[in-house]
């Protein structure tokens, strides 16, 4: 899992079967010191409460779909938690 910052939302009316009702957010992946790393990506919101500006952690690959109500859906990144606090030494 990685840290990310929610930057925006994505709305799609026509989408693949099984994705009805799933919220999609634009997430900027972050390094451990919360510096941006790489390009923003679109992640499904599995906690249903993440919003723009929030620090979240997300899971990638096959495990992202495991966070969805329907397990076999084309989702490759999913937000699974909203971060309250990060403590990093060194």
């Amino acid at each position, binding site marked *: *899992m*990685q*840290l990310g910052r929610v930057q925006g939302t994505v709305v799609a009316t026509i989408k693949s079967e099984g994705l009805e009702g799933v919220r999609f957010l634009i997430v900027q992946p972050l*390094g*451990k010191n919360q510096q941006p*790393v790489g390009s923003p990506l679109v992640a499904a919101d*599995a*906690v249903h*409460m993440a919003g723009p500006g929030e620090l979240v*952690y997300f*899971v*990638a*690959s*096959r*495990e*992202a779909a*495991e*966070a969805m109500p329907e*397990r076999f859906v084309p989702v490759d990144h*999913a937000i*699974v*938690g*909203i*971060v*309250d*606090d*990060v*403590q*990093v*030494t*060194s």
Partner: protein
Amino acid sequence: MKVGVVSGNVVSTINFPFFDGKKLMICDVLDGAGNRGSEYTIAVDQVGAGVGETVLILDEGNSARQIFGLTTGPVRAVIVGIVDQFDLNFPPNPADNG
């Protein structure tokens, strides 16, 4: 699996139900030379690791779910061991010198 060093932790109250009560640690993944690079992962701690400790990180979903006795769950990285020592200074293999 990967070898990493625990460098911090993440606290979260609003999360996917699987993560309720789980301890999440930020781990720097060590490269082939045993150094910390820019790669890190947030892993679920299953062994009680602390900051600064060298750990063994499982990074595969099915094995991770098996650890927690689940058939479904959005988990992939799990700290499964605390490393006492590791040695990268094996003698060179004569076969590698042509």
